[in-house]
C-alpha cells in the first residue's frame, strides 16, 4: 500500500460541499503537485488531511501508513509522521521558535534530544534557508514577515523530518530570492529517505528546481486530470482554462 491513500474523500466546510470524491495515492519518497485555480479546494484537501476540525469529512477514508487516520486528532497524525506547512502560519507569543521546535520534536519522538546536537542541527538548517539566526530566539512567528514565516515553516519541516509533508501555498507572497531558498529547503527534505510531498500551489516558480513525480489538477472540488511532471509546464503555458467547463 502507498504511504498515503485517499479514497472517495468528500469534505464539507460551513455546510458547503467543497471536495467531491477525491482519490489520490502517494508513495514513499514521491513528490506530488496539486494545482488548480483559486477556490478549487486545494487548501481544503491539505487541511482535511491534517485533521483541521473545521473541515468535515462527510465520506471516504484517509489511510496513512496502512492505518485509517480519518478520526485521529492533528497531533496524532503529526506523531504518525504527517506535517503541513501552513499558508498563513499563526503567531504564538511567549514561546521562542527554537524552544517550540525542540518541544515538538520531544512530543513526537518521546525523548529529549541533546541541546548541543539540537543547536547544531537548527543552526545548519537556518543557514541553508538563509534565515537570520537571531530569529530562533524570537517568539514563534510573532512579527515575522511573510517570507520569514514561510522559512520558519520549512525549518520545522527539516527539523521534524516527517514521512509526508503537505506544503500549502508555501510560495505565495514570496519574492524570487525567497522562493529560491525555500525550494532549496524542500530539495533538502526530498533527499531524506522516503520523504514524500504534496505541494499545493497555483504558481509554478517553486517547482522549477524540484523533481516532481505526479501532478494533479483540482477544479471545483474534483481532480480533473493527473499526469507526470510535464503537466506543470503545460499549465504554465495554457493555464486552467480548458478544465473550467469540465
Amino acid at each position: 500500500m502507498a504511504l498515503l491513500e485517499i479514497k472517495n474523500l468528500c469534505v464539507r466546510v460551513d455546510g458547503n460541499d467543497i471536495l467531491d470524491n477525491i482519490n489520490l495515492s502517494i508513495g514513499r519518497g514521491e513528490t506530488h503537485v496539486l494545482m488548480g485555480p483559486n477556490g478549487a479546494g486545494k487548501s481544503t484537501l491539505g487541511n482535511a488531511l491534517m485533521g483541521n476540525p473545521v473541515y468535515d469529512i462527510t465520506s471516504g477514508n484517509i489511510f496513512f501508513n496502512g492505518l485509517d487516520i480519518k478520526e485521529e486528532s492533528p497531533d496524532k497524525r503529526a506523531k504518525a509522521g504527517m506535517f503541513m506547512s501552513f499558508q498563513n502560519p499563526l503567531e504564538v507569543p511567549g514561546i521562542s521558535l527554537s524552544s517550540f521546535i525542540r518541544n515538538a520534536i520531544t512530543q513526537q519522538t518521546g525523548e529529549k534530544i541533546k541541546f548541543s546536537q539540537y543547536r547544531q542541527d537548527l543552526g545548519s538548517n537556518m543557514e541553508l534557508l538563509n534565515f537570520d539566526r537571531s530569529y530562533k530566539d524570537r517568539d514563534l512567528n510573532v512579527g515575522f514577515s511573510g517570507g520569514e514565516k514561510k522559512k520558519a515553516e520549512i525549518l520545522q519541516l527539516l527539523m521534524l523530518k516527517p514521512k509526508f509533508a503537505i506544503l500549502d501555498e508555501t510560495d505565495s507572497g514570496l519574492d524570487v530570492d525567497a522562493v529560491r531558498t525555500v525550494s532549496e529547503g524542500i530539495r533538502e527534505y526530498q533527499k531524506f529517505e522516503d520523504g514524500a510531498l504534496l505541494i499545493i500551489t497555483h504558481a509554478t516558480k517553486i517547482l522549477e528546481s524540484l523533481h516532481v513525480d505526479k501532478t494533479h489538477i483540482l477544479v471545483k472540488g474534483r481532480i480533473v486530470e493527473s499526469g507526470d511532471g510535464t503537466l506543470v509546464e503545460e499549465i504554465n503555458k495554457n493555464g486552467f482554462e480548458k478544465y473550467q467547463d469540465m
Partner: protein
Amino acid sequence: MEKERTEVDDIDRSIYDFKDSEEGFYRIKEGLTKEIVEKISEEKHDPEWMRDFRLKSLEIYEKLEVPDWGPDISGLNIDDIVTYVRPNTKMSAKWEEVPDDIKNTFERLGIPQAERESLAGVGAQYDSELVYHNVKDEVSKTGVIYTDMESALTGEYEQMVKDHFMKLVPPTDHKFAALHGAVWSGGSFVYVPPGVKLDIPLQSYFRLNAAGAGQFEHTLIIVSEGADLHFIEGCSAPKYNVANLHAGCVELYVGKNARLRYSTIENWSKNMYNLNTKRAICEEGASIEWISGSFGSHVSYLYPSSILKGNDSHAEFTGITFAGRGQNLDTGAKMVHIGRDTSSFINTKSISKDGGISTYRSSVTVMPTAENAKASVSCASLMLDDISRSDTVPAMDIRTDKADIGHEAKIGRISDDAVFYLMSRGIDEEDAKAMIVSGFADPVSKELPLEYAVEMNNLIRLEMKGAIG
C-alpha cells in the same frame, strides 16, 4: 482520570467546634459583637489604642452596607460573620483533613511536605519558624525590620505601627475594611531605613503558618527615603482555609525617592470570598510596582490602589487573573494622580474558561494639581470557550488639560487556528491551549522572580488540565 483541579468543595462545617442552630447550648450569638472583638483584642494582648481602634471599626462596620456594584456575594452570610472569625482562634486543623486535591496540587507544584503543611495552615511550625528566622537574621544586619504584625504592635515599633496602621485604608473605606479593622490578625510588618537597598526579595512565603493568619492579615510596609525593597507575598500554592472569607489589608508607604516592588500570587481555594484591600502611597520621586496574580477563590474583589501624592512619583501595575468554573473574579487597579509629573501604567491580562467570569475594573483619577501627568491603561482578555465571560470597566476621571492619557482594551477568544497549528506539530490539545495561555500570560510571568514564574506556569497548566472535552 485523576482529578487535577485545585477546587475544593464547600467547607465541612463539622470542623467547627460549635454546632449549628438547634442545640442552643453551644450556639454563639449571631453577628459580630463587641464581646467577641474585645475577646480577640485580649487574646492578642493589644495595647489599649488598638483595642479602641477595633471597637471603633466594629461600630463603622455595623453602619456600612455590603457593596452592591460587583460580583454577587450573597453566598457570604454576613450575619454568620462570627463563624468566620471564631475558627481562627480555636482552629485545630489537621493535615489529614486538608482536601486531597489541594494536597495533589502541592505535589504537582513540587512543594516539600513541611511547607505544604505550613501552607495549609497546619503543622510544621518548627521547621518553617527556623527558616523564617534565618531570613530574618540576614536581613536584620541591614537594619531592616521584618516581623509579624503582633510583635511589631507590642514591641518597640508600636509607635510606628500606630502612626501608619489603617491610615491609608481607613475602616470607613468600605464594610470589609471596617471588618478588617475590628478583627484583623497576623500579617507582616516591614520597615526599611533610609537609603537601604535590599538585593534579595523579602518573602512572606514562610510566614503563612501562623494559625489562621491568612484570613484577616494585615501587611504594613514602610520604605524610607531613598530605600529599595522587593516584597513577595504568598505563593502560588492554594492557600487552604477552613473558613471562606478573606478580608486582608495591605498598606504600603513609599518614601521620597524610594522604590517598592510588591509581588503577589494569590491562589485561594475555590470556596473563598476574597475581599482584599491593598493601597500604596508615594512621596516625591517614589515608585511603586505591583505584580499581581489572581487565581482561585469563588469571588474576588481586588483593586490595588496607588496614590501618587508626591511630584515625579510613579506607579506600575501588572496583573493577571484566571477565572475558571464557578469563579467570578473582579480585579483591576486604581491610580490617583495628585503630584505634578506623575505617571502610572496599568497592564493586565485576564483569562476565563469553563463559564468563569472575569471582570477588569480600573479607575484612573488625575487631580487638577497633577499637571503633566501621564497615565496609560492596557487590558487584554482571553476567553477559552463560548460559555465564559469577560468584561472591561475602565473608568477615567481627568481633571486637568495638561495630562497625557492612553487606553487600550482587547477582548478575544482563543484562536482555533492557533490550536490547530500547534497540534499539527504533534502537541496535544491540552498542551496547545496551555501554551497559548502561557504565552498570553508571558508579559506578567516575565516580571516575576524565576521560581514564581515557573510556579505560575505550572499553575496555568494545572488550571488548563481538564479544560478539554
